[in-house]
């Protein structure tokens, strides 16, 4: 297991190199001069040239890339063109908001998704199952930003129950709508997957064995069926956690949430390359680490895939 984790962490290196390379090339071909961006209109050609030299963007792209990577491995993500602040401090300022929102969304996803899926499977073809199937199908189809705006109109504007947007004083009222919007699609997916894996699990012979032992239905479903059914669902939730944690660009923008997703969105609009690249790298690393955690959790759930040392040597 230890070797497996080390190997997975080492796998991060090529991923980070690949991601930075692609982003670097993409931002390089955008015909926007950061020096002009910073100094605005009316700057003299000398001033522009000086600033380019200072930023290092007068050098060929491979030199720029090399310098960036050197800084990256010492933990420095560079300086924002727009704000003249280090990207590290910008991200550090906004990340807590994203993580809090992500956790709220994941909690909704886990509780509602798994619970709905179990009910659907256990009460197959009942009214509740139909209701769950219809609503999850709708939720999967509806884009997050649209759902967000509809909620804003209904609960914020018309009913005045919840604040329209923003983080406010950080109370739970501000979380409800963005968290629901952010969780909507994944909750629907979790519910549907939970239903199908639960049904599959319930059709296994060991379920009959469990009943034949004299266990209660609650125990058969909650213990024997659930643990088997959870295995694929955990992957789904883990992957979601990875992507949501990295900042939910659409949801944060719609709800004006001061998280890292909105920060990256604004940075893209402003051609603020260091913030875009830095934000993306952190996102990728979180994603990969979440995947690793999912795999470790997997091994706990399913003893058949516990990694042996000898497998590494093969």
């Amino acid at each position, binding site marked *: 297991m230890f070797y497996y984790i080390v190997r997975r962490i080492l796998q991060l290196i090529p991923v980070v190199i690949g991601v930075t390379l692609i982003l670097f090339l993409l931002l390089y071909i955008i015909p926007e001069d950061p020096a002009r961006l910073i100094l605005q209109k009316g700057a003299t050609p000398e001033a522009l040239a000086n600033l380019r030299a200072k930023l290092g963007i007068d050098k060929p792209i491979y030199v720029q890339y090399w310098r960036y990577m050197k800084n990256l491995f010492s933990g420095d993500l560079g300086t924002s063109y727009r704000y003249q602040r280090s990207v590290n401090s910008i991200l550090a300022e906004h990340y807590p908001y994203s993580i809090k929102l992500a956790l709220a969304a994941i909690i909704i996803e886990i509780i509602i998704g798994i619970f709905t899926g179990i009910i659907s499977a256990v009460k197959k073809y009942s009214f509740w199952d139909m209701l769950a199937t219809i609503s999850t199908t709708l939720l999967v189809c509806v884009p997050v930003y649209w759902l967000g705006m509809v909620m804003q109109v209904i609960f914020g504007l018309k009913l005045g129950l919840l604040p329209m947007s923003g983080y406010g004083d950080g109370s739970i009222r501000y979380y409800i709508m963005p968290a629901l919007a952010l969780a909507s699609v994944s909750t629907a997916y979790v519910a549907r997957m939970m239903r199908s894996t639960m049904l599959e699990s319930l059709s*296994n*012979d*060991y379920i*009959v*064995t*469990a*009943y*034949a*032992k*004299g*266990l*209660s*239905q609650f125990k058969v479903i909650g*213990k*024997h069926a659930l*643990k*088997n059914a959870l295995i694929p669902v955990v992957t789904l939730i883990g992957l979601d956690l990875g992507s949501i944690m990295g900042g939910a660009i659409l949801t944060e923008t719609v709800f004006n949430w001061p998280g890292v997703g909105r920060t990256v969105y604004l940075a893209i609009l402003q051609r603020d390359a260091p913030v875009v690249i830095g934000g993306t790298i952190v996102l990728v690393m979180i994603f990969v680490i979440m995947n690793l955690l999912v795999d470790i959790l997997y091994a706990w*759930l*399913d*003893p*058949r895939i516990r990694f042996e040392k000898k497998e590494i040597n093969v």
Partner: protein
Amino acid sequence: MDSSGNNKILEVNNLKTYFYTDGGIVKAVDGVSFDLKVMETLGIVGETGSGKSVTALSILRLIPQPPGKIVEGEIIFDGKNILDMDKKELQDFRGNKISMIFQDPMTSLNPVFTIGNQLMEAILAHKKITKKECREESYRLLELVGIPDIKRRFESYPHEFSGGMRQRVMIAMAIANSPSILIADEPTTALDVTIQAQILELMDELKEKTKSSIIIITHDLGVVAKYADRVMVMYAGRPVEFSQVDNIFYNPLHPYTIGLMKSIARLDHGKNEKLKPIEGTPPSLIDLPEGCVFRVRCEYAEDECKSQYPPLSEIEPGHFVSCFRAKEFLSGSLVRNK
């Protein structure tokens, strides 16, 4: 059914279990009656789809519902009809009074829990003892069924066991609460021949030790000959012949049983004697023919067989046959074809 009634532990009367499918009603079990005596081993034989397993699952009310449903009959255990039990009674009853061993030990154990966990769970479902006592009890059971290296094996997962070892664990779980009846649904079908014998010997041994009765469901007539005291032969969801094991093998009175006996290889027959299969295929359980269900494959069928189903009746003491011509076989006026 049997006159020496006082040592009966289980009595099944006119059990009917149907499955309601899109294609129609599958009459998987359609009027099965039998009884089981204390410390008796009853064999239920029949081909695939004859309703043996459904009969067994019905006794423990383990029929998946929907699509299945027990539509009629009674199953009397210890003076109580199992079909009238509520959820709670049923839970206390399953695994405690009657327990079951299944066909495929590969899939009957939950892959994500340790053997110890699953065994202890079976004990704790019915006994109020501490975890520590339960662990001791589990070790004792595992030793009883012949698992080596118990303490390590206790912590192992099913995939670390061979098929025979898993079936031993299943048996340990089944006898954990010293049930009065052990139902074994083709317990050796999925195992190697050498392991089969070990498992059957183990069950026989444990039966003596625990003074329980066994219902063994199989399509292996050899198993029946060696272990069963009485045998019920099933065809298309109904019992066709029910008697002492010797009668079934040496004096079968139902054409289906007669056909079965001719279709198996026997040491006491000549080397060059050909095996004779029963012509035709079993009927669809959705669309059963009028009259006797076996008549279309029967060499001895008469007009009478077309119009009504022959009731299971006692042709000689303790020998029940569901055939209009059984008496003729018995008296010798009708000779079994070679």
